[in-house]
């Protein structure tokens, strides 16, 4: 049990360190960038004197750096991520509004990618060097080589514009909004293309890891023991090989988070999905630095926390760590 606590403590420590580095980085980057911090934070080249005054006061830009940093950290701990210039609302509020759709898209896509990748990876891993394996591997490489936004646009072209089966944009039909179950079905209908795009681009990672893991586990000694004991290959595979082989894929879930979110941002832009990705695009377009940096902070924190959770889940699943 102590090893589990030790493991937990170490992972939490790493998380805190990462968050600290991200915060410091955020702080340093703004002040190290070319140009006046005031202008950066104002989002324009010629801020009015009142604006300069307000911003200086708010961010303490006339104070020594240490004081500024401390004020920054304090405000962060209070949940204050700054104020968006374009929307004239707290950044945290904007993020809170858009995080839901992003989560919906990201989680759906990741689950799909995991399921598909693991299934196909198992198929390939049990028949390495076969034609099917070569085909699947090639397909995986191809999908991984596609920019998510391009795949989305092509999908939109074929399935929405030409075939008309699926909607082109948005999360639901704004022209005829529904309620209750109909609403969620509508959302699901709009979710198909973006989620499928994101899932297809993520799937190769799980595929490759699972395939390698299956190949390796099939060569492990305990498989020989069980075979010698007269167990049927199907039984051995289902009850023993799978559990051993799937563990690395679980780790991948955590490691992929950063890339999934990046892909989600791009896909959201393509499909006008009302999530954080589209918010990011708007912020970039209007040079809304407080908003961009707030998003960056939240995303970094999410990735770090996600990695921690995945590590913990893995530590719980793998008896070697749990009872190490």
């Amino acid at each position, binding site marked *: 049990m102590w090893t589990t606590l030790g493991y937990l403590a170490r992972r939490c420590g790493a998380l805190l360190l990462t968050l600290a*580095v*991200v915060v410091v980085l955020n702080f340093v980057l703004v002040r190290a960038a*070319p140009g006046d911090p005031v202008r950066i934070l104002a989002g324009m080249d010629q801020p009015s004197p009142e604006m300069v005054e307000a911003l200086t006061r708010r961010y303490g830009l006339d104070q020594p750096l240490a004081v500024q940093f401390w004020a920054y950290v304090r405000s962060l701990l209070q949940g204050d991520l700054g104020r968006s210039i374009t929307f004239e609302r707290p950044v945290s509020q904007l993020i809170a509004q858009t995080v839901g759709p992003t989560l919906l898209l990201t989680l759906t896509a990741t689950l799909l990618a995991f399921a598909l990748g693991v299934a196909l990876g198992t198929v390939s891993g049990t028949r390495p060097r076969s034609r099917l394996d070569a085909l699947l591997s090639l397909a995986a490489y*191809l999908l991984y*080589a596609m*920019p998510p936004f391009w795949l989305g646009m092509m999908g939109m072209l074929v399935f929405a514009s030409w075939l008309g089966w699926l909607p082109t944009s948005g999360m639901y039909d704004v022209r005829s909004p529904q309620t209750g179950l109909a609403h969620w079905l509508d959302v699901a209908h709009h979710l198909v293309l973006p989620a499928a795009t994101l899932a297809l681009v993520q799937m190769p990672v799980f595929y490759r890891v699972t395939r390698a893991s299956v190949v390796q586990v099939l060569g492990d000694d305990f498989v020989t023991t069980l075979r010698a004991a007269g167990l049927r290959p199907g039984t051995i595979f289902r009850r023993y090989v799978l559990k051993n082989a799937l563990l690395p894929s679980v780790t991948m879930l955590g490691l992929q988070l*950063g*890339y999934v*979110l990046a892909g989600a941002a791009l896909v959201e832009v393509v499909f006008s999905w009302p999530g954080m990705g589209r918010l990011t695009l708007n912020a970039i377009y209007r040079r809304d630095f407080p908003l961009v940096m707030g998003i960056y902070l939240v995303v970094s924190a999410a990735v770090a926390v996600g990695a921690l959770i995945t590590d913990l889940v893995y530590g719980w699943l793998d008896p070697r760590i749990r009872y190490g």
Partner: protein
Amino acid sequence: MRADTGRHRRRPGDPGRATDLELRTFWRGYVESRSGPIGLALLAAVALVAALAPVLAPVRPEAFTDALLAPPGPGHPFGTDHLGRDIFSGVVYGTRISLLLGVVSAAISAVVGTVVGAVAGYAGGWIDEILSRLIDVFLMIPVFFLVLVVIMLFGNSLPYVMTVIGLTIWPANARLMRAQALSLRERTFVRAAVALGEAHGRILARHIIPHGIYPVVANTTLQVAGAILTEAGLSFLGLGDPNVVSWGRMIYEGRVSMPHGWWTTLFPGLAIVVTVMAFYLIGDGLNHALNPQARERGA
């Protein structure tokens, strides 16, 4: 038992060149992977296009013509965009940008990662502790968003983009190199060098790095692919270099013409896929050639 002289040292002072047998074994492994040679062929084709761009492209990619949003046809094999720019020329010249960007970013990452990783693994102790923490932290930071922020703040010209990408993806190489350095540190020939009083810098440069660099090389090929995809994503969000014709930027600018002008998006995207695939396949071949155990089991 033959003394552990570092596998391929021939003379004292010789930094160590691979023997003929090793090169042949490596090449055989690379060819056996089947993906390796295909990747190499694809890359050769792309590089050829890049080199012969002025000859292959009918016009300069930035040049406006009168044929606005013309579909693929004679004179414009890939069509034109809403400002009349020839897509084919854009794709052809884009190879130069992509290759340049990919290779430079990955090179920066390789150099920084190798040095940091080698120092960390070789030095050990508190140096290793600090550097390892640094590597772990940077591995957890989402690359795309960090690059996004930095480019917004610092500028989006191509050299900036290349440098920033390179400076954010090096931790993966550092980790690989560190693992190599850790094991190489215990090898007899390295310990002999230390005992003889060779300077640490020399040991790193002549013994540790040359012998441990192989996984980094394989990983770096994959990073070229990653850099190209990252730049494409940034350009698609409007953060790329506006003065440069990159495939990502072409897709960004072609978005207004969708869905009617589908050719403005399709062809640049295909170019990305082909080029990225080339590097994936090469990386796969390298992994195959450098990892015999995985080969035997059919991985």
